[in-house]
């Protein structure tokens, strides 16, 4: 039987529920904080989860209003608590874990922190636990490890190949696995092992006459350490002890989108597809149209070659990015 692929996407305060339903989204993930948390640990610094200021709901009430609407339409909602937490944050966490557990429209949590997994065990948390991609499950033994904490689903790392994904998914038919799809942002690093600084803030803007006044936390960097790295590369501010090729931004794009995998993955039942929507002003429905075209092609294509040709064109059509098989680890061979 062909997998119809459950589609999971981020939900932001800006998203219209009607659009989520219209797009055929099966499930959403979202996050929230409150002023007491933000005052101490500004969420722009990815302290509550890996989402930014504008993408997280500012309070539980606003979030629950949306998840309840989605629940009525049969769309499940997960709360993202995939930060790493210190002891000082535990009272807030405990209060909010209980709050989300009591809310009928919330299906479960997405987590990665071992401390939080231990806390959920201690609290006898009854809803579903998804291990975030930040849990870096690179091998089956890691899946066993997370199963011990009661995980029912694992979000796999973006840098796994189709064959690696398939082997793991087939070994654990009782679990669900999520695979990131259509992301072509060009992140070169492994999410769960990356400590590059990110400040995902929504600046306060005031226009006074001709002058724009912006208040923000970070006026020093371009918002992320990895962007600083790429900026330095682009400005030729690098040196190596051996001869290298010149840095080329185009060569660091067009990989990791995982779209070529769809034909291979379509027969694996316990895989769902995740579209990310991180960033201060991200929108959860980016890439849906593209994904639908691809799913359609994966179902109708006779072989990988035929599907790959379509996928390659689709990548160019929607993202204006050329597939970059020279560096991509994909097993699909576009």
């Amino acid at each position, binding site marked *: 039987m062909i997998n119809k692929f459950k589609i999971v996407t981020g939900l932001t305060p800006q998203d219209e529920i009607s659009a989520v339903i219209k797009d055929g989204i099966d499930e959403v993930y979202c996050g929230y904080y409150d002023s007491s948390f933000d005052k101490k640990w500004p969420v722009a610094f990815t302290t509550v989860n890996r989402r930014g200021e504008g993408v997280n709901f500012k309070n539980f009430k606003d979030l629950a209003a949306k998840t309840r609407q989605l629940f009525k339409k049969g769309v499940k909602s997960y709360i993202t608590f995939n930060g790493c937490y210190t*002891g000082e944050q535990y009272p807030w966490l405990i209060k909010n874990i209980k709050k989300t557990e009591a809310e009928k429209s919330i299906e479960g949590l997405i987590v990665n922190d071992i401390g939080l997994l231990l806390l959920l065990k201690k609290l006898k948390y009854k809803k579903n636990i998804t291990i975030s991609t930040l849990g870096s499950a690179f091998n089956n033994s890691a899946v066993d490890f997370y199963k011990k904490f009661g995980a029912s689903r694992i979000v796999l790392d973006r840098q796994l190949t189709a064959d690696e994904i398939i082997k793991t998914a087939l070994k654990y038919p009782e679990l669900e696995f999520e695979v990131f799809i259509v992301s072509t942002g060009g992140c070169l690093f492994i999410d769960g092992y990356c400590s590059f600084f990110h400040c995902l803030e929504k600046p306060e803007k005031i226009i006074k006459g001709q002058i*724009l006044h912006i208040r923000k936390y970070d006026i020093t960097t371009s918002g992320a350490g990895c962007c600083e790295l790429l900026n330095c590369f682009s400005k030729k501010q690098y040196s190596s002890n051996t001869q*290298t090729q010149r840095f080329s931004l185009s060569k660091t794009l067009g990989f990791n989108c995982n779209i070529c995998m769809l034909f291979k993955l379509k027969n694996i039942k316990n895989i769902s597809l995740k579209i990310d929507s991180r960033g201060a002003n991200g929108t959860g429905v980016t890439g849906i149209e593209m994904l639908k075209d691809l799913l359609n092609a994966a179902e109708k294509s006779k072989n990988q070659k035929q599907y790959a040709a379509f996928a390659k064109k689709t990548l160019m059509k929607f993202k204006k990015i050329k597939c970059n098989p020279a560096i991509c680890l994909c097993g699909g061979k576009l």
Partner: protein
Amino acid sequence: MKYAFLTDDLKTLAKTKTPDILYFGSEFCVNMMPDIKTLEKALKFSLKRKTGFVLVLPFISNDKIKQADKLLAFLSRHKKRAEVIFNDWGTLLLILKYKNLEPVAGRLLTKQRKDPAAFDIIENKQRKMKITVINGRQTILESKKIPAALKEYFQKSFIDAPGVSEFMTENKIRRCELDLLPWSIKIKESKKIKLSVYFPYANITVTRYCGAINLNYSKGCARLCASRITEVGAGRLKYPYIIKGNAVFYRTGSEMLGKAVLQNKNIDRIVFNDAESFNKHNTII
């Protein structure tokens, strides 16, 4: 304080002073895991020089699990007791199969906030105001103040959160590996868990797209890590990024090291990851 030296290369070992402990293996790349013969030679070196021995393992993909397990079996047979650094939670379960091996949580798992690009922001040392032009409009950028709790958050790790040290000891983990931080480390004192810090290179991130960050734009292992070091942002960044193999680092200094050791009584081991620095470690400490 014990002084350890980390390498995955037997030739480098021959050129370095004798450490208290030899850390042998790779933290970041499965392609750099030693084979049994190389491990045996490293163990012989350690025996001859009378050093302690720690096997270092990276995060491991399914196709390399058997190789990792063979190394563990070999180590278990040849050492009465040995520490093994693991960098994914699956590897912990592999190590626990061997009673005489002691798992140590590697620096990829201790999840500190490390990127020095945040230094001025976290320390509230940014310029208060900047005037610039955005989309043709004159713009005043004003920096918001960082709360003290956020700096403290950046100094910590989940490892001293409630329940974590109990989990660690239940799983025979008695040591965690940490990087030095520009804003200093602040981990609660614990009788159960000892800490190591790495010097001089602190790790920021890793990738499987090794070819892309090393500018040879190929997939597959070209063993670039054996020879190539790329420094990015010198003259622009306070702490330039250093790329070696599939990982990105920054260089820490002796001031950072001294502060960390003085402020965290649980740090009882310094792991040198550069031969030159190790050879003059008496002058650094």
